[in-house]
């Protein structure tokens, strides 16, 4: 889905997201957060990509060309990928922010590898449509219908170098496993979290994640929408 919104497109950076009001009349009531898939800063548009799962995404799906939506963004911190080899580990629509990183840093694509997991082949999104053509990718399915048979996390070790940094986005259980494996391999690891959000602004303190260490009691839980969405995967309690 492509939306024309020059101010948002012009300032959007990797890992940031946009809060979209799916229905101006209030059903569903809250905005829905979506990662950027691609932006064209000159043309002034951005694209999102989503799974239809509930009332909000259903309203978006019903949209027809020319419809207007109220969108707020870009929100969250821009993720600046560290130097060196980057391993992107995606599950489901978690591929979206990772794809945007690849789109937005063409110079990094040669030193980037994407691993994508799904239950079964038919649940895989159309990677050719979502990813730059020159991004190396490896696929796994739990049932072996395509690619590696097993979890996508099985592929991490073989595709990592000692200085690889891992960035993951996907289901909670997958990201937790990525964090664990990268810890065992002593790799740095970042996770792009998709906690449930009310405001997306830092105002409600609802979207928090628990940090392993914090100086003060009130900093034990921190806001994903402001501190993240990308966090150090080894710094939080999974």
């Amino acid at each position, binding site marked *: 889905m492509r939306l024309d919104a020059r101010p948002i497109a012009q300032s959007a950076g990797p890992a940031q997201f946009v809060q979209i009001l799916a229905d101006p009349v209030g059903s569903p009531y809250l905005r829905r957060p979506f990662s950027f898939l691609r932006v064209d800063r000159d043309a002034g548009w951005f694209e999102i990509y989503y799974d239809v799962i509930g009332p909000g995404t259903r309203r978006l799906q019903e949209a027809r060309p020319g419809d207007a939506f109220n969108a707020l963004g870009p929100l969250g911190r821009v993720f600046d990928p560290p130097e060196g080899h980057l391993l992107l580990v995606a599950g489901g629509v978690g591929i979206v922010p990772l794809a945007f990183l690849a789109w937005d840093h063409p110079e990094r694509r040669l030193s980037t590898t994407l691993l994508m997991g799904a239950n079964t082949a038919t649940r895989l999104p159309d990677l050719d449509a979502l990813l730059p053509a020159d991004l190396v990718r490896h696929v796994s399915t739990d049932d072996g219908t395509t690619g590696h048979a097993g979890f996508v996390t099985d592929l991490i070790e073989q595709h990592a170098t000692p200085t690889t940094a891992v960035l993951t986005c996907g289901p909670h259980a997958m990201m937790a496993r990525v964090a664990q494996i990268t810890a065992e391999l002593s790799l740095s690891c970042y996770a792009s979290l998709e906690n449930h959000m009310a405001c997306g602004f830092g105002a409600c303190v609802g979207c*928090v994640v628990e940090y392993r260490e914090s100086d003060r*009691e*009130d900093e034990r839980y921190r806001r994903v929408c402001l501190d993240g969405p990308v966090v150090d995967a080894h710094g939080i309690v999974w």
Partner: protein
Amino acid sequence: MDMTVDIGGGLRLRNPVLMASGTFGHGAEYQGLFDFAHIGGVVTKTITRHPRAGNPPPRTAETPSGMLNSIGLTNPGLEGFIAEKLPQLSDLPTARIVSIAGTSSEEFAEMAEALCEHGGFDAIELNISSPNMKDGGMLFGCREDSARDVTRAVKDVADLPVIVKLTPNVTDIVAIANAVEEGGADGVALINTLLGMAIDIESARPILGNVTGGLSGPAVKPVALALTWKVASAVGIPVVGMGGISNATDAIEFMIAGANAIQVGTATFVDPLAGPNTVDGIIDYCQRKEIVRVAQLTGSIALP
């Protein structure tokens, strides 16, 4: 047109629209989005004596036309607030109200005294009504005697206006409002959230990490309006109404029912400009209706 309103203890607001506690951070989050001089004032997230981490996530859940929250008063504590947040708050070009909650009358008074000594804000809101504080937060607001005592304890030490925020989760909110008026409150604010809950039927687990939470948003507006009308009809001090206010129409309903000012809460999450837009809408309405002082709206209800 005169948009100013009094909300008690001599505190006069530029206009009747305040941003509700816990839905506006400490103001900083919304800076740059609009000019704070455009709204009547802001109420901070509730401060407690000591820093609080808050409740385990998930902390929010959407419900039909509303949301549940179980934030649990995450805050840096009294000292942390004074050192880190109050300076920024003090700079805001609008009325600044600090919300506090304690576990005893003494703690409430201790906090109020320390804050007043420090200064840099305009009034105190006593949160005796949070459903998200296990150690007694809400109990003060559920009983007349404790509500009266805590109000009096704070009034004895505070040299700024004291507004007491009431919970809707009681049999007789008018009795509580009367009690805090007896205790010396300069004004009352209502409503805080209604106790609520949501369950995920696939896992049979409560959606909120804290099991129950507080319901807010348009869903609660009819309840909030009824209670505002009842309280405003019964007390002699100013009333600040809130609960589900999203726009000027909602705000005007509360003023007609008897509120002197209103607060915009959850609506800010959906539209960060809900506050200033509400101000503009009230101005439009008054112009159209040729109302010269917005305060004339207060209690102008035409009963059958």
